[in-house]
């Protein structure tokens, strides 16, 4: 008995001692609201996969900087032909995959062919559509030929969807990701945490300050607050509860960041399903909703309203928030004219506070206008399956956090919007192939106006980037032009 106890004590002391040494300054613990179901950004649309994996574990040809500029990454340089159709990338010779296999042009070809394939499960298949062919000129040079000019091509090459994966490990990437990045995947305890460790063989290893990064999945805002306050977490870059920021602002241990994301929060309607195929019904819904109330009630005023599908901080932004001024009586008349008064509409909401809170307010606003909206709170896996993949819904609330994603409206009837409009498809074709920035901005403005006019969805607000950081944490991006923040530049002292 005595012996056992002393062994236990030693074990305890050992564990305690170990935990002290592992909690060194170069370990970062990050809180995450959304736990993904897969870790492969090239096959799943969940934003948090990119948040953890892209440019940390996986790398792509280019990388996007905090202010949205495209910079070299696995491609150290590139040349674009006169006609803008041929891109020749020179690849780094200092990269290798975490399993020890070398990185070369064949990996790039494999990754692109996989994303471009007929049966590709890439969540942003559209960004590969302009690509005609990918060929290796030699082991360190890749040439990509486009069918048409693509204004977003180099930017898109820096997104998680175009991560370079190895053919040997691609099938297990969803649970055991292998890339070329500055961090290696270490472990994933589902429902709890995911750990990355520094990749000492990375070409930029000398610049990487962190030895270990732990993501902890905490979806409940109150639990997130408690964990931050107890300093169990160093950072919560996407803090879910705006009402709790004040106490962090008042606390000298923390720094609160209010930035912008590329995330347009929309009240998505299933345009393929009656009555949402009727533009008058959609316009009535846009007339019934009151953005100011939603932002005030759900976001505690910490968000910017949007009237179409383009971020307010973008260059081509047009303010269309007055397109459908809130008018409950008018909305009711419109619903009556369309014969939908008294019908039930289901609002299936994913488990994010911005969505569940907005849903409750929208439910009340629609009910004032004579529509019986039923709110159903669903799990994220269910949402991805039933709503995103099977289009089985009336309305939902979701933030579209990808940049340059107006192309969503040109994805045809099989995308969960169920929106199929040749005019919009043609317009996006024009936008994405226009390489002149000014002309493209004009077209983007046209697109925003058209989407607002068609009232495809209820456009609500731009998702703010609310982050809470301990003062020791430096280098985290304060705004998010893409879905990731490279941890390469983050430090903790």
């Amino acid at each position, binding site marked *: 008995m005595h012996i056992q106890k002393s062994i236990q004590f030693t074990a305890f002391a050992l564990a305690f001692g170990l935990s002290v040494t592992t909690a060194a300054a170069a370990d970062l613990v990050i809180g995450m609201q959304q736990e993904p179901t897969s870790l492969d950004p090239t096959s799943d649309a969940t934003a948090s996969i990119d948040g953890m994996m892209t440019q940390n574990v996986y790398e792509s040809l280019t990388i996007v900087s905090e202010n949205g500029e495209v910079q070299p990454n696995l491609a150290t340089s590139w040349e674009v032909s006169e006609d803008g159709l041929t891109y020749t990338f020179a690849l780094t010779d200092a990269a290798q995959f975490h399993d020890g296999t070398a990185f070369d042009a064949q990996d790039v070809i494999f990754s692109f062919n996989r994303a471009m394939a007929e049966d590709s499960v890439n969540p942003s298949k559209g960004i590969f559509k302009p690509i005609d062919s990918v060929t290796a000129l030699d082991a360190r040079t890749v040439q990509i030929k486009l069918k048409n000019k693509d204004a977003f091509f180099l930017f898109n090459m820096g997104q998680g969807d175009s991560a370079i994966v190895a053919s040997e490990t691609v099938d297990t990437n969803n649970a055991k990701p292998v890339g070329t990045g500055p961090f290696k995947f270490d472990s994933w305890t589902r429902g709890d945490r995911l750990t990355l460790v520094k990749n000492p063989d990375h070409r930029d290893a000398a610049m990487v300050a962190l030895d270990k990064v732990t993501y902890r999945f905490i979806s*409940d*805002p*109150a639990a997130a*607050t408690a964990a931050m306050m107890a300093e169990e977490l160093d950072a919560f870059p996407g803090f879910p*509860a705006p*009402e*709790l920021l*004040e*106490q962090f602002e008042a606390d000298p241990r923390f720094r609160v960041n209010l930035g912008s994301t590329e995330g347009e929060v929309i009240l998505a309607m299933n345009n393929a399903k009656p009555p949402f195929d009727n533009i008058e019904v959609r316009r009535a819904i846009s007339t019934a909703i009151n953005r100011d*109330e939603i932002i*005030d*009630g759900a976001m505690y005023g910490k968000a910017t309203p949007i009237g179409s599908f383009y971020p307010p901080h973008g260059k081509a932004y047009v303010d269309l928030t007055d397109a459908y001024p809130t008018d409950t009586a008018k909305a009711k008349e419109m619903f009556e004219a369309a014969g939908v008064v008294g019908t039930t509409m289901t609002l299936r909401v994913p488990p994010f506070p911005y969505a569940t809170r907005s*849903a*409750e*307010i929208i*439910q*009340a*606003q629609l*009910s004032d206008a004579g529509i019986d909206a*039923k*709110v*159903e*709170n*669903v799990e994220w896996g269910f949402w991805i399956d039933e709503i995103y993949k099977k289009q089985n819904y009336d309305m939902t609330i979701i933030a579209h956090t990808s940049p340059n994603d107006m192309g969503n409206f040109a994805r045809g009837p099989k995308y969960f919007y169920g929106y199929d409009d040749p005019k919009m498809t043609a317009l996006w074709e024009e936008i994405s192939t226009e390489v002149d920035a000014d002309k493209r901005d004009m077209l983007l403005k046209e697109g925003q106006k058209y989407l607002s006019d068609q009232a495809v969805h209820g456009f609500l607000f731009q998702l703010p980037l609310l982050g809470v950081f301990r003062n020791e944490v430096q280098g985290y991006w304060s705004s998010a032009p893409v879905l990731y923040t490279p941890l390469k530049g983050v430090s903790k002292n």
Partner: protein
Amino acid sequence: MKQLPANFIIGAVLVAFVVGVAALSLIWTPHDPTDLNIRAKFGAPSHVNWLGTDQLGRDLVSQLMAAARNSMTVALVAVLLGGSIGVALGLLASAIGGWVEDIVMRLADLGFAFPALLFAIMLAAVFGPSLTNAVLAIAFINIPIFARVARASGNQIWTREYVLAARAAGMNKFTITLDHILPNIAAAVIVQATIEFAVAILAEAALSYLGLGAQPPASSWGRMLSEAQTLMYLAPELAIYPGLCIVTAVLGFGLLGDGLRDMTDPRLARAR
């Protein structure tokens, strides 16, 4: 009749208050409990909103009243449903005995071992979260409890002289069960039902707190609690009021059940 036990009196007063408020909410609440007024959120108590307003500007008193109604309805339906099935099974086991009794009681053991929360999560996964599923889950956990009570009390009655006489006179077991057994176990069942009512209120609050019960915009104490959780620093009263309501209701039914038991249990009566 001797003096009523104190727990019975306190319990009855609390229950009368909660049930009264719930009943009143059927015909009247100060405001529409689902009426949003976001500009007036976190309102202080006033002559318009007696306890103030919540994070979406809804009247707190009205919400608490509507939630009381919701809570009582769920508990009533769940206990009635689970209780009737449980008592029927218990009486069946007690009347027939033998392998039927064995099977029923082993199934009851199985039901006991199955946590209500797990059952509710299962129902929510298959049919989606709803108040109906919460009711079914709570009813389900009540079945084995009532089956045990009914069987245990029933078995005692079956050995009484008047029952033996009835059997000797040729009455069949079904008639005996209805005529003699059921009326004589009624007291025990009612005591159990009152206690289970308190448990059901707590279970409904827990399920709604977890998002498996009442769905918005329906008011529920449990849901109000979960929504108030992040607002504890800003507006602690939003968590305190529904919490107090749950305590009042559960305590009320619990004390009432204890009091009833004290009054109907002959051993305790003699001891007093």
